[in-house]
């Protein structure tokens, strides 16, 4: 029997499920191996009942999101946090350390508390157990296909445990910190993108989230300080995709 797969989205840009639709060469082959029970963006077909693998993109940003996520968890054997919003909370988590949701609603919509059911954006793991992470803003198509293929064969998908820097060096790209003084986050961000941005002469903005262990970042952090970037600037950059990253994550010289 084909595994029953659900593709769900909470709050985000829907870019991760779009990456599934963007698999123009593989899509028809791929869907022939699975039974899709829910895919709101792509289909009006919907089935109740248990799910073998649930892909969930987006962050939990409303009470509706939270309830939806709980329901998905209850009916799913394997729950995959699919993309940066689901894994880290996404770009909308960037300013969670600055002010409450009520203040923000007041500022942006001009409404009183309780007008909407919004809450501070959080990653899925804040509310439910997550079995597998597929990082990225957006997810890489190859990594997603590899994950699905692994699961079809009863294996766990491979996980990148080293930073973007490694891929950058394997490609022999010039280091954008050393060569052009750009605030590249490659040393602390999870690999898997083949160092796309440094390959274009751009600094890594961290869209795949932090690598599991950030030890060794102290040297890098100091290098950025020496290039004249302030601590506030670097933290702001890390927070764009790394959720509620704490100040001590940076380590290194706190001058």
């Amino acid at each position, binding site marked *: 029997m084909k595994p029953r797969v659900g593709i769900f989205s909470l709050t985000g840009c829907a870019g991760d499920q779009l990456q599934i639709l963007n698999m123009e060469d593989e899509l028809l082959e791929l869907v022939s191996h699975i039974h899709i029970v829910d895919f709101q963006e*792509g*289909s009006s077909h919907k089935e109740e009942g248990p799910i073998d693998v649930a892909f969930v993109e987006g962050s939990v940003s409303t009470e509706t999101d939270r309830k939806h996520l709980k329901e998905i968890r209850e009916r799913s054997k394997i729950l995959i946090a699919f993309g940066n919003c689901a894994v880290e909370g996404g770009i909308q988590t960037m300013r969670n350390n600055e002010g409450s949701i009520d203040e923000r609603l007041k500022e942006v919509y001009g409404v009183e508390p309780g007008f909407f059911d919004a809450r501070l954006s959080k990653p899925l793991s804040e509310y439910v157990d997550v079995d597998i992470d597929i990082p990225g803003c957006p997810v890489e198509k190859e990594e997603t296909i590899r994950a699905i293929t692994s699961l079809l064969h009863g294996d766990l998908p491979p996980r990148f445990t080293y930073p973007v820097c490694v891929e950058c060096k394997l490609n022999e790209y010039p280091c954008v910190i050393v060569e052009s003084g750009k605030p590249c986050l490659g040393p602390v961000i999870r690999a898997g993108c083949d160092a796309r941005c440094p390959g274009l002469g751009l600094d890594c903005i961290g869209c795949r989230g932090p690598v599991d262990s950030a030890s060794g970042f102290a040297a890098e952090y100091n290098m950025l300080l020496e290039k004249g970037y302030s601590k506030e600037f670097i933290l702001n950059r890390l927070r*764009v995709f790394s959720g509620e990253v704490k100040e001590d994550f940076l380590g290194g010289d706190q001058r």
Partner: protein
Amino acid sequence: MTRRLTVDMLTRVEGHGGVEVVFDGSEVKDVKFNVFEGPRFFESIIKTVHYDKIPDMTRRICAICTASHSLASIGAIENAFNVKNTPQTELLRDLLIHGEMIESHALHVYMLALPDFLGYPDAIAMSADHIDAVKNALNLKKAGNMIHTTLSGRDVHGMNERVGGFSKAPTEEELTEVKKMLEEVQPVAELAVELFKGFELPTLNESDNVLMAIDPGDRFGYLGTHVLVTGGERYPEEDYMKLTNEKVYRHSYAKHSTYNGDPFMVGALPRIQLNHDKLMGTARELYKEHSDMVDPRNTLSNNFCQALELVHDVERGVEVIDTLLSNGLEEEDQVEFEVHEGRGRNAVEAPRGLLYHDYRFDDNGCITKANIITPTAQNAANIEKDIRVMASNHVGEDAELMKNIEVMIRAYDPCISCSVHLVRLR
């Protein structure tokens, strides 16, 4: 007696939205286009951020219109700092926005809207009987994504287009490959017109529509500095606030826009209706042949207009590449400019219609205030107007009405993720 009809969750649209219609007897009492998508506070989170990183952030408002957001964002920054780009940059951006239309329209026209007209729940089910149509559609979409990948760095949320130019110019070989692909899919774009011209459109929603689209200059396109409105008015992009008066409703995280108190429509139908005389080549011929399919009183003709744009996009893409190749590609540095306190506003056509980005900067080039108005937020009030007209004209089964409303909304190709952006209230 009050009767409440709902569509809990619209499918085959980007993002989360629903519909509510309340009848009092046969009288339509209330209609709502509900937006459940959670808020993301972009205008608030980009404050204090340096201009160079703004497009990387704001493009993440939407996946399917990522390049439109990026170009609108870059344009607003460049307007604030008076950046003058090279002709190569202008051509590459023009190609990029056409690529965006191709990937987005191919997805919407073939994969999301066509199943409605052929009676399938989705393109995958449709592929059982129409495998060639689905394969062709995927190929057409791939051509659009190839433009994204070649110019922007990847399909979704690229990074290569920057303030003042491109970080790395594409090679002549890469552009030649894209051109080959575009030529291969030209018949698929034309087939979309053939398909949609044959469908009889429901007329339940017919009513007057105020239309708005960018003034692209001499040639049909998506970039420009002025906005055209039904009736011949023309506004500079700086005056966008006069065109989009936003309001907050409890049922929606998307603000609703009106123009002189009336709802209005943006998107492919307004673009074709207001700018069809600027179409060239096959798209012009096809428009002349089927101009009766472009009905400004029926928003469902938006699907046909998207198909027509696909033909334009593919042809124009080839033409821009030819110009780039004959000029020869240079590895250019991003142009230099002076950062200062200031404000920049910019309008571009996203696949779903006009998109505005408006930023104020301090003298370090960091954002002090931002305002972003997306096409679906502008269309929301018009969608509600259409729902009201349809509900008022409807006789027969409730289920049929709700199904027709869903088809009508889908024809707008709403991007609900995008619509949830927010503006600071004045």
